[in-house]
């Protein structure tokens, strides 16, 4: 698999449920970031976790990073219909360096 691969590719849940998306990568990283993209729109930065961090929270978002497994997960708690979007993980090998994106997880939250 390529750097920054997410699974599942698509996830459909009911409003109020939690959504978990996973990301795997291959090379060493400085940080890993999660972005959201609404259909046909730009990328919105959600959260950044550094290689020396294991877990980070931001509102309803919880990100974990396991550098030994080269994997990360994004948990969205108490999902809302407005959370419907594609979610991408992206890794940077150095601070300020290029981001390598995965294919993304398409999340659909049904009201």
């Amino acid at each position: 698999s390529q750097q920054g691969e997410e699974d599942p590719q698509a996830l459909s849940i009911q409003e109020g449920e939690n959504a978990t998306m996973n990301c795997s990568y291959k090379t060493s990283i400085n940080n890993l970031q999660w972005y959201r993209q609404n259909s046909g729109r730009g990328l919105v930065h959600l959260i950044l976790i550094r290689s020396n961090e294991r877990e980070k929270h931001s509102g309803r978002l919880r990100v974990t990073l396991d550098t030994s497994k080269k994997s990360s997960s994004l948990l969205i708690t108490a999902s809302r219909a407005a959370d419907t979007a594609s979610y991408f993980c992206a890794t940077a090998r150095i601070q300020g360096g290029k981001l390598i994106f995965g294919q993304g997880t398409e999340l659909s939250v049904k009201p």
Partner: protein
Amino acid sequence: EPEVTQTPSHQVTQMGQEVILRCVPISNHLYFYWYRQILGQKVEFLVSFYNNEISEKSEIFDDQFSVERPDGSNFTLKIRSTKLEDSAMYFCASSEGQGDDGYTFGSGTRLTVV
């Protein structure tokens, strides 16, 4: 909240024509980037720019592409002779290079080559 601004939002051009995509990064950011996303595919890195020069570029960023920061605010991507396969959404981004704020992306320019 500061934004990265891209113009135009949509450009249609004839194959072989030159196009310039424009971006205004966030003013105190030091790193600038161009990415592209072909419809239905992943976001791909094109080029990064720091301290008035290219710091890294991908294999996609061949001699047909160039970037410029002509003044203190604009950051442009030029495609010299467009091909059909250049049709994509092009995103500009900027970052401070430190801190936890990640990269700020613009809303993109949808380039259609006909």
